């Protein structure tokens, strides 16, 4: 029911003429209207020490505004759940819970994804300088850490998407290693 309403809303939105210039406020507005969904992901990590990238695949479920579940299926089953500020990782029967409120650096890292998914500009700008390129159909949002502590871990985060759907998140780490997360939405209602 709600889903159908959302899909309807989505159609109305995309049908609107892209008259105004595409800016961060508009993108954030679009993203904020995205109420969540399921997606497949493929994550490739390019590490200097390895000759080939490490590839992991699985499913992600996002429920706006602050619940994100990432279930890795290969190479090893692992569940990562972010619920508000609690991050839990389950792997090999081991379960680990971290309260992100205690870990400002990790929180900033997590906020880069969460802030983008939920279109929370204030949360993003707390730790990053934002640059937007492209148009509503294909946009690229670049996040550059403004805090020294975060910059010592990650140089740049690049988020690519179309409309209100995030497609690729790329992390460039301070040591030059990078990871690319490809997101492919699964929306049975939409026939995708």
């Amino acid at each position, binding site marked *: 029911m709600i889903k159908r309403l959302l899909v309807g809303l989505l159609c109305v939105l995309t049908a609107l003429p892209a008259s105004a210039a595409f800016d961060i406020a508009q993108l954030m507005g679009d993203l904020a209207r995205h109420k969540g969904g399921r997606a497949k992901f493929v994550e490739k*990590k390019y590490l200097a*020490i*390895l*000759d080939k*990238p490490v590839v992991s695949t699985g499913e992600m479920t996002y429920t706006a505004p602050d619940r994100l579940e990432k279930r890795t299926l290969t*190479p090893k089953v*692992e569940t990562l759940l972010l619920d508000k500020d609690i991050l839990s*990782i389950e792997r090999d029967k081991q*379960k*680990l819970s971290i309260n992100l409120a205690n870990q400002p650096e990790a929180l900033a890292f997590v906020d880069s994804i969460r802030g983008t998914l939920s279109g929370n500009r204030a949360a993003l700008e707390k730790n990053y300088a934002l640059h937007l390129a492209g148009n509503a159909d294909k946009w690229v949002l670049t996040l550059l850490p403004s805090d020294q502590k975060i910059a010592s871990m990650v140089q740049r985060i690049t988020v690519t998407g179309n409309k209100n759907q995030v497609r690729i998140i790329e992390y460039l780490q301070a040591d030059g290693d990078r990871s690319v997360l490809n997101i492919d939405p699964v929306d049975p209602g939409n026939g995708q």
Partner: protein
Amino acid sequence: MTRPAGRALALWLLAMLAGAIVVWNSRFSADMSFFLPAKPSAEQQVLVDQLKEGVVSRLLMVAIAGGDAASRATASRALRARLEKLPEFVSIQNGETGSMNAERDFLFAHRYLLSPAVTPERFTVDGLRQAVADSIDLLASPAGMMLKPLLPRDPTGELVELVGGLNAGAQPNARDGVWASRDGERAMLLIQTAALGSDTDGQERAIGLVHSQFAATAANDKLSLQLSGPGLFAVKSRATIKSEVSLLSTLSTVAIVAVLFFVYRSLRLMTLGLLPVVSGALAGVVAVSLAYDSVFGITVGFGSALIGEAVDYSIYYFVQSGRLGVEHWRARFWPTIRLGVLTSACGFGALLFSGFPGLAQLGLYSLSGVVVAALVTRYILPPLAGANLDMRDLSHIGPRLKRGIAVLQSLRWPILLLALAAAAMLVVNRNHLWHPNLSALSTVSAADGAADQTLRADISAPDARYMAVITAPDRESALQAAERAGQKLDVLITEGVIGGYDSPARFLPSAAMQASRRASLPPTAELQARLQTALADSPLAAGKLGGFLDDVETTRRQGQLSRESLHGTALALAVDSLLLQRPNGWSVLLPLRPPVGHGEAGVDIAIEPVRAALAGSGALFVDMKNEFDTLYNDYLHEATLLSLAGFVAIVGLLAVTLRSPRRLGRLLLPLLLSVVLVIAGLHLAGQQLHLLHLIGMLLIVAVGSNYALFFDDASQAARGFEDFDDATLVSMAVANLTTAIGFGTLALSKVPVLHAVGVTVGPGAILALLLSACFVGRKGGA
């Protein structure tokens, strides 16, 4: 002064002097050994050891409140820095990062001797391939972030294996880089003292240091410090007992002296009257001191009751012999008093057989006190007092008392009905009368207990409820046994029965285990060749793993790890607290963690599967909470038996002496009614009964029988209570008053052990007198 008087006095003085010397050399203690079993079972011994010297008994939890998060964090760091330098503390944790560097370095440096995954198979071509592939898989996970910089030196992921076994359970909250309470409003520290939990002086010093060092750091007077832990409870409880011992004794002495002075109106008689009391109190301490290695403060606190009881004999003597003379008193009244002393002795004596050391001490103390007071009254007091007592005639009070008794006797049926109703109520509520566990006897106030609970939850402090315990003749065999038990526990982890466990062998493997792990490591050339083959298709090139080859070779040539190798790391502390040298060998503690529950709270460990898994391994599984409950139930069960035995002894003694079932019945009826009425009254007043109330019931019979005996004696001498000897009545009233004062003072105590005896025996003694008067019979008839 006559010659016999002089001799008596000299003898008494000598005895007192000897007693004073013994007391001077006695050791007094106010620690929890009062409550700990005298003859513990193996499981209880673990409990006792843990309470006395276990790590948990040495933990102090500290909270810094007030101000803002930043100033609290600063204060927490400053406090840690200061305390860390003091020898009184072995570890101060506040969640500061960097504080675990030494430990991580140690684990990394010795990973090939410490990792349980190091076996010959691990270093075969297949083993290496698998281990490296697992490590690379881990890199895909955020959990692998830590591993990435270490990968060239630790491609098989031994550090991950090592750290995986450590407590991954609840970590405290953090704010501004240091631990914080759940709501974030307090900075938290976890401190381990060098002093043992049983060393109350040491704990007091450590707590004082925490406070003074905090005061010295706190530039910000908005901050306040809160502290709790077993050490604080011990210190507070000792302070309470200390202050109460003197306060209660003083109160009861002053009140009794006032009564005596009012009755005698003579300083000389009053002083003489206190002679048996002082002798008894001293004898009590001497007896306990000689029989046990230390005298408990609570035992001495019981002195206030002893004073009230022991003073009775001199009251009888002065009031009764004033008119009749010493010889007549001895012939006429001493046998009754003697029988009373014996019944009291039966009551107190029953406690001697208790396995609850506190109770046995109380019994010995009171028994020797009462007997000595009676003997001094009988043999020392008469020659000292002389023939001419100058005792005021109190007979005029007699008729008034008799009028009161007449009124009481008209109330026999209502009283019987009331007692019947009380008994019925007790039967109906029999399942709600008793306090279920040992905490009933604890001196810890409800407020302190609640504060402790909050701190404990805020800092996720370990409660060490479950433990597997191993004993072995030497360190090496102890560690080997720990490793064998560990393998069984690993199975339980996979099955989800337990969440994890700690073991000293994790940081200090047995020499045999270290040798076998070292033997698993191939020489460099061989390892290099295997690595080439194993990693042919791997994204990780063998050529990048020079550091790995070097580290393995270093370990191959390195000596054994010993306890000394751990020096300077918190791991030394962890090993020392889990691997203990005992007079007769070594013991290993393996604390078990419950599996992670679905909710906020953890779940209990299922006892039977753990017992079954450890069966035959020589490890004893102990559930501390269960042991505590069992211990209390054992005490309660034993106290019930002892009370019954004491009661039977009293009844037997009376039956043999009185040789009349009718007289015996008349004598016991008021005593039993008193017990029923007092217990019902306590229940209605909302008191939950515990062990000491039970003992109190026995003491009502033991002490109350003294009055009943006088009435019985009088009923044999006179035709009706109208003809009773007035002086005897008056002496009983006064003696009863002093006894009630003595025990009643205990009711004021905050120490549950003393309080319970006070509220039971105080009113019970008065009721015993009143009801004995009420149901007194006549010679040869009802």
